[in-house]
């Protein structure tokens, strides 16, 4: 029997008999919602199944800062930032050959972080603003009465509120149990597997070629994932490296069925860690942690039909609000911003006569009017292109083939035009086909 929720609440001297809002999940979305609500004076209960230190949090490793500053202007000074990203690298990899492009940006727009640390900071912010933060409580069910969410249940304990915010994350069991979403399909998610490699800051800066106030974000595309759409990722922390792979699950299943993928997924990560081109980045490092998390592909296709229901608002990953382009992953800032918007919708409802569905559903309009929705909509096509196995396989071949033609010479030196046409013919393409492939790619963007 789970009696922890009631035990914690009854141990407190003064708790309200009923909360204005209950937020389920203290990830970026839930903590941002609870923080914004508490700041507005709402009696807010923030519940998490971890032990209070962000224990259930795992992501690639990079956060875009600006949307978070809209919630916490003190972010740059206070948040547990590992490194500001000043170098963006992308590598196309095939066997032991690689083409790498680097963009050196003068100023960090994004930073690397350890998500347990960052979300602990966010939850503490909510707590300082006045939210009641209860951890080690797993919510089993959202309670509905006459079609309206009225509370949550953990084991035999229940607690009620005017509004429930579902910030439970990508697996969204509670929404599924409530019949609001269907079972997750492999088409709409990718598996991210991650290792934390401890290198020490001196070795890390030397091997990545960065200064002590710099950070690198690096994406690798090619046979690292054995032709399955996805890729490798690398982010530099202070004295550790976050690295791993992302594997589109539908294509991974197809590859297993076709006999093209017959390795355990951890061996793909190992292949990346031991890859002759990349291993120098973390030579002699020890593994500090290993974990995995699902990441959303084609965000809006994963979204429930509505994000507002009577008494219930859905935020963050559970709402499908994560952007993937194959090069960028934006989850933390999108999630947190949706949490802020949900809190603002609750404020709107209170200012307009109460927490009726007619008032609460302004949240759907807030989301549609925000960068979160417009960015997800704008990138639907990109995700389709990057998840096409045929296009995905050709990209590294074209990039590497072109540089091979240009640089590997004995007597003859090809003109750039000769190099390009030779590479294209190897890929069964000609300039016309490349043009139409590019056009169809561009049209879908």
């Amino acid at each position, binding site marked *: 029997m789970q009696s922890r929720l009631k035990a914690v609440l009854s141990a407190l001297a003064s708790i309200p008999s009923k909360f204005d809002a209950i937020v389920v999940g203290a990830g970026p979305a839930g903590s941002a919602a609870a923080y914004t609500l508490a700041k507005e004076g709402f009696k807010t209960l923030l519940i998490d199944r971890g032990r209070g230190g962000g224990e259930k949090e795992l992501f690639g490793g990079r956060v875009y800062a600006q949307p978070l500053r809209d919630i916490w202007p003190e972010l740059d000074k206070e948040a547990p930032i590992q490194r500001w990203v000043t170098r963006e690298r992308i590598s196309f990899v095939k066997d032991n050959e690689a083409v790498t492009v680097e963009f050196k940006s003068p100023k960090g727009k994004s930073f690397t972080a*350890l998500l347990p640390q960052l979300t602990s900071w966010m939850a503490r912010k909510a707590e300082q603003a006045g939210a009641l933060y209860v951890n080690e409580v797993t919510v089993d069910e959202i309670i509905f009465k006459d079609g309206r969410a009225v509370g949550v249940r953990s084991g035999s304990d229940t607690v009620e509120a005017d509004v429930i915010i579902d910030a439970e994350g990508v697996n969204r069991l509670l929404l599924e149990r409530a019949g609001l979403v269907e079972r997750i399909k492999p088409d709409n998610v990718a598996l991210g597997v991650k290792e*934390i490699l401890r290198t020490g800051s001196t070795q890390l800066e030397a091997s990545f070629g960065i200064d002590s106030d710099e950070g690198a974000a690096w994406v690798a595309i090619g046979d690292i994932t054995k032709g399955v759409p996805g890729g490798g990722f690398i982010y530099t922390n202070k004295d550790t490296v976050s690295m791993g792979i992302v594997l589109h699950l539908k294509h991974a299943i197809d590859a*297993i069925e076709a006999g093209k993928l017959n390795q355990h997924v951890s061996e793909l990560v190992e292949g990346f860690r031991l890859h002759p081109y990349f291993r120098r980045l973390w030579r002699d490092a020890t593994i500090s942690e290993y974990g*995995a998390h*699902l990441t959303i592909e084609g965000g809006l296709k994963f979204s429930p039909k509505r994000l507002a229901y009577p008494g219930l608002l859905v935020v963050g990953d559970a709402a499908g609000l994560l952007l993937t382009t194959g090069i960028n992953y934006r989850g933390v800032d999108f999630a947190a911003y949706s949490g802020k918007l949900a809190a603002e919708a609750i404020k709107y409802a209170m200012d307009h006569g109460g927490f009726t569905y007619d008032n609460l559903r302004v949240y759907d309009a807030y989301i549609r009017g925000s960068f979160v929705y417009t960015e997800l909509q704008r990138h639907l096509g990109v995700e389709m292109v990057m998840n096409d196995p045929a296009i995905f396989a050709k990209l590294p071949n074209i990039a590497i083939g072109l540089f091979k033609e240009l640089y590997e010479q004995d007597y003859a030196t090809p003109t750039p035009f000769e190099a390009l046409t030779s590479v294209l013919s190897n890929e069964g393409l000609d300039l016309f086909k490349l043009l139409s492939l590019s056009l169809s790619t561009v049209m879908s963007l």
Partner: protein
Amino acid sequence: MSAQQAKQEEPKPIKLEDILQSDVWNVDEEPHIVVDYSKCEKCPTKPCIYLCPAGCYTLAGDRVVFSYEGCVECGTCRVICPMDAIAWNYPKNGHGIIYRFT
């Protein structure tokens, strides 16, 4: 540099079970995932064997064997299982994986 030194610098593969030694769990007595093995027997592809990142699903002969203790709570098995054989729950009240650096 001697040949021996060069050899030492060659990075070595690490077994998944050794990698998982770096992780911390607060293991519950009750499993949060229950597998209906009768369905696994009819499963032609068994993608869980390859795709569960923690290696919780292994083969004993041609039978699937599952253990929940080392689960990293990603949810992959539930999504990919073609037989709908997996009942998956969040571990109860503070149990399960304890991520620190991820």
